[in-house]
C-alpha cells in the first residue's frame, strides 16, 4: 500500500460510508459535553423525541459556568448560571451518560479530564461542542470542536457528516531553549503564519521538538490549533503517550491493552507520505512569547517592542484598533508594561506540570502590590496532586488565590471579570476583545511568564528572574492519575 499520512489513517478507519463529493459519514467514538453548549444539544435531542445511540460513549462535565470559588455549589456568579447547571444535570441523568458533576472528585475542564481519565485514546474520534477539543489530538486522536446541532447529530447517530480536510504537517525542529515552552511554539507558529494559517487543514505537529515534548506540553500545543483556524491538531502517539495512558481510569487493561497498543503503534505518518502542505519552524532560537494585540497572531518575543502599524498579518486599521484597545503605542517595550492581574489556568496551561513550573518561579517570592493573581487548576485531580506536593502553599504564600477546578476567568460569562482596561497576563488561549471581561486587556503567555510577571507587576521575561538552570523547560513529566 502507498505511504499514508496519520490523518489519512485516522480518517479511513472511521469512514462508515462515502457520501460523495468529498463528504463522508464518520464514526464518532467519544462525545464529550459541557454545561454551556452540551445542555442545549441534550435538551433539543430530547425535545425532538430522539435518543442517544450509545450513552456509554458520551460524557459530560461542569466546567464553563460553574464557580471556581472555594466551597462552591450550584449557585453561580454568572447571572442565570444555576439554570445551566441544573438543566445539564437533569438532561445527563435522563440520557444515562456519565456526568462529572460540580462536586465530583474527578470534575474539571473537559480537555483536561478527558486525557487524565483516558477517555480520549490514540486513534479515536472525539468531538465536543467546544472549539478547543483539538487539545485532545495530542494523544494521537482525531478530536475537533463542533456546534450544538452537530453534537445532537453525533449523539443520535454516532456519526458526523464531514468533508475531508486537507493535510498540513508542521515540523518543529531543534531543541527548545530553557524557559521556552510548548505555549511559545504555538504562539510562534500563529504569529508567523497567521490566525487563518491552518484554515481548512488537519494539522499534524511533528519534528524533533514535538517528540521531545511531554504529553502535557503536547496538549498545550494542540490546544491552540483552533487559534490557527485548523480543523484539528494532533500528534502521532509514541511510547510517552502509551506510558501516560497506561492505568488511567478508562484506558483498556490486560489483553485488551496489549491489543490496543499493537494497533496504536501503527498510528504514524508513513515515510514518504504526501501532505497537501508542510511547514517547518526551528525552535532553537525561540524566546518566551507574549501577545500584544487582540488576536493570537499578534504575538512576539517578550523581549520585543510593540510593532509599527502595518506589521505582517494585519491591516493598518486592524493594527491601530488593536493598539487602541490594548492601550499601547508602537515601539513600547513589552517587558515593562505594568499589569493589574495574573491568571494561571485554562485548558491550555492548568495541568500539574504547568503549576509546578509556575510554582518554581513563585517559591520564596511574592506577588507585586496591587496585582490580583489567581491560580485555577484544570481539574480536581490536578488540584489534589498540587496540594499533595505543597504547591498550593507556594501559590498562597506568594499571594495567589487558590481555586476549585474549571474554566473560570479564561472567558467572561457575565459574572467574574478582571475589570475595565485591566491589563492581565494570562496563560489562556484567546486575547480577543473583552474575552476576559468588558474591555479587559489580555496578554497571553506561558505559565512561566505569568508567574514572573505576577511577581514584578510588569510583563517579565522569566529568564531574567530565575537563574536559567532552574527553569525546567516544558519537559517535566507527570500528571495526576
Amino acid at each position, binding site marked *: 500500500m502507498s505511504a499514508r499520512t496519520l490523518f489519512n489513517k485516522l480518517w479511513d478507519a472511521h469512514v*462508515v*460510508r462515502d*457520501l*460523495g463529493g*468529498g463528504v463522508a*459519514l464518520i*464514526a464518532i*467514538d467519544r462525545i464529550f459535553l459541557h454545561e*454551556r453548549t452540551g*445542555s*442545549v444539544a441534550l*435538551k*433539543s435531542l430530547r425535545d*425532538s423525541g430522539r435518543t442517544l*445511540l450509545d450513552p456509554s*460513549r458520551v460524557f459530560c462535565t461542569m466546567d464553563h459556568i460553574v464557580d471556581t470559588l472555594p466551597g462552591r455549589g450550584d449557585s453561580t456568579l454568572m447571572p*442565570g448560571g444555576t439554570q*445551566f447547571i441544573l*438543566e445539564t444535570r437533569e438532561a445527563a441523568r435522563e440520557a444515562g451518560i456519565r456526568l462529572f458533576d460540580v462536586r465530583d472528585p474527578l470534575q474539571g475542564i473537559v480537555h483536561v479530564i478527558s486525557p487524565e481519565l483516558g477517555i480520549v*485514546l490514540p486513534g479515536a474520534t472525539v468531538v465536543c*461542542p*467546544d*472549539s478547543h477539543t483539538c487539545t485532545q489530538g495530542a494523544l494521537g486522536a482525531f478530536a475537533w*470542536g*463542533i*456546534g450544538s*446541532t*452537530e453534537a*445532537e*447529530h453525533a449523539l*443520535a*447517530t454516532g*456519526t458526523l*457528516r464531514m*468533508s475531508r480536510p486537507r493535510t498540513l504537517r508542521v515540523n518543529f525542529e531543534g531543541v527548545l531553549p530553557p524557559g521556552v515552552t510548548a505555549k511559545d511554539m504555538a504562539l510562534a507558529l500563529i504569529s508567523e503564519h497567521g*490566525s*487563518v494559517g491552518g*484554515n*481548512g487543514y488537519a494539522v499534524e505537529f511533528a519534528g524533533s521538538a514535538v517528540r521531545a515534548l511531554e504529553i502535557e506540553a503536547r496538549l498545550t500545543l494542540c490546544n491552540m490549533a483552533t487559534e490557527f*483556524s485548523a480543523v484539528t491538531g494532533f500528534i502521532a502517539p509514541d511510547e510517552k503517550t502509551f506510558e501516560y495512558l497506561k492505568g488511567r481510569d*478508562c484506558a*483498556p487493561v490486560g489483553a*485488551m*491493552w496489549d*491489543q*490496543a497498543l499493537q*494497533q496504536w503503534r501503527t498510528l504514524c505518518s508513513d515515510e514518504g507520505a504526501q501532505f497537501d502542505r508542510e511547514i517547518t519552524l526551528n525552535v532553537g532560537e525561540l524566546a518566551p512569547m507574549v501577545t500584544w494585540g*487582540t*488576536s493570537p497572531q499578534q504575538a512576539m518575543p517578550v523581549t520585543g517592542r510593540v510593532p509599527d502599524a502595518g506589521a505582517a498579518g*494585519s*491591516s493598518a*486599521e*486592524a493594527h491601530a*484598533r488593536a493598539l487602541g484597545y490594548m492601550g499601547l503605542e508602537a515601539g513600547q517595550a513589552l517587558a515593562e508594561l505594568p499589569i493589574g492581574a495574573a491568571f494561571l489556568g485554562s485548558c491550555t496551561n492548568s495541568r500539574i506540570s504547568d503549576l509546578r513550573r509556575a510554582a518554581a518561579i513563585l517559591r520564596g517570592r511574592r506577588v507585586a502590590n496591587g496585582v490580583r493573581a489567581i491560580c485555577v487548576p484544570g481539574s480536581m485531580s490536578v488540584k489534589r496532586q498540587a496540594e499533595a506536593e505543597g504547591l498550593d502553599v507556594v501559590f498562597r504564600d506568594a499571594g495567589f488565590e487558590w481555586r476549585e477546578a474549571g474554566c473560570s476567568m479564561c*472567558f*467572561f*460569562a457575565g459574572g467574574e471579570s478582571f475589570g475595565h482596561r485591566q491589563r492581565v497576563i494570562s496563560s489562556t488561549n484567546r486575547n*480577543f*476583545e*473583552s474575552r476576559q471581561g468588558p474591555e479587559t486587556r489580555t496578554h497571553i503567555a506561558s505559565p512561566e511568564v505569568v508567574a514572573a510577571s505576577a511577581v514584578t507587576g510588569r510583563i517579565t521575561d522569566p529568564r531574567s528572574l530565575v537563574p536559567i538552570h532552574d527553569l525546567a523547560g516544558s519537559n517535566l513529566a507527570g500528571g495526576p492519575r
Partner: protein
Amino acid sequence: MEAFTVMTAVAAPMLRDNIDTDIIIPSREMKTVSKTGLSAGLFAGWRYTAIGGREPNIEFVLNQPAYAGTRILLGGSNFGCGSSREHAVWALHEYGIRAVLAPSFSPIFQGNCIRNGIVPVTLGAVDIAALAAYVTEAPQEHRVTVDLRNCEVTAGAQLRYSFALEGEAREMLLEGLDAIDLTFKHRAAIQQFIDQDRRVRPWIYQGA
C-alpha cells in the same frame, strides 16, 4: 430547516477581520439553555451604548435606518472565529440574516451556518470590498443577490461573482434538509460499521 435558493436583500458591511463569536453574541447574552430569544443579544457589545443595556448605538451599522431589513452580512476574514457557540448562528438567524459573505470562515462557524439555513459564501477580500463600496452608496436600493442554485453573488449591473460550496452542504441548504434524518437512512451501515469495528478496536466499546 428553511430552504434557501435565491435571495435579494439589503447587505451590511462589517469588514473587520476576526469577528469572533463572542462579538456576534457575547457570553453574557446567552442567558438560557435555549436556541431562541438570542437575537436581542446579537452584536450586543457594538449595538448598544452600554454593557447589558438596550439603548441603540447609532454608529453601529445595523442600527442605521439605511440598513433596515439587512439579511446579508459582508464580513472580513476568519469570520466567526473563537468559541464554537452555535448561539452566534442562532442569533444571526433569528435577527434575519440568511447569508454571510467573507474571505474566510472559522470551520466550526461555517458548519453551524450550514446546519441552520445561513449560507456561508467565501469570496475574495477584493470582491467583498467592491460589494461593500457598491452597497454603501445606497443600501436600500443597492441590494445584493445570493443565488445558491447557480452559486453566484450579483449586485447591480457590474458585480457578479461565483463561489464554491461543497456538494452536500449546498444540497442541505437548498432543500432545507435535516442532517439527522438524512443520516438515519444509513442506519444499517452504521450498525454494520460498529459490529465490525467492535472486533477490530474492542477497547473503544468497553462500556468506558
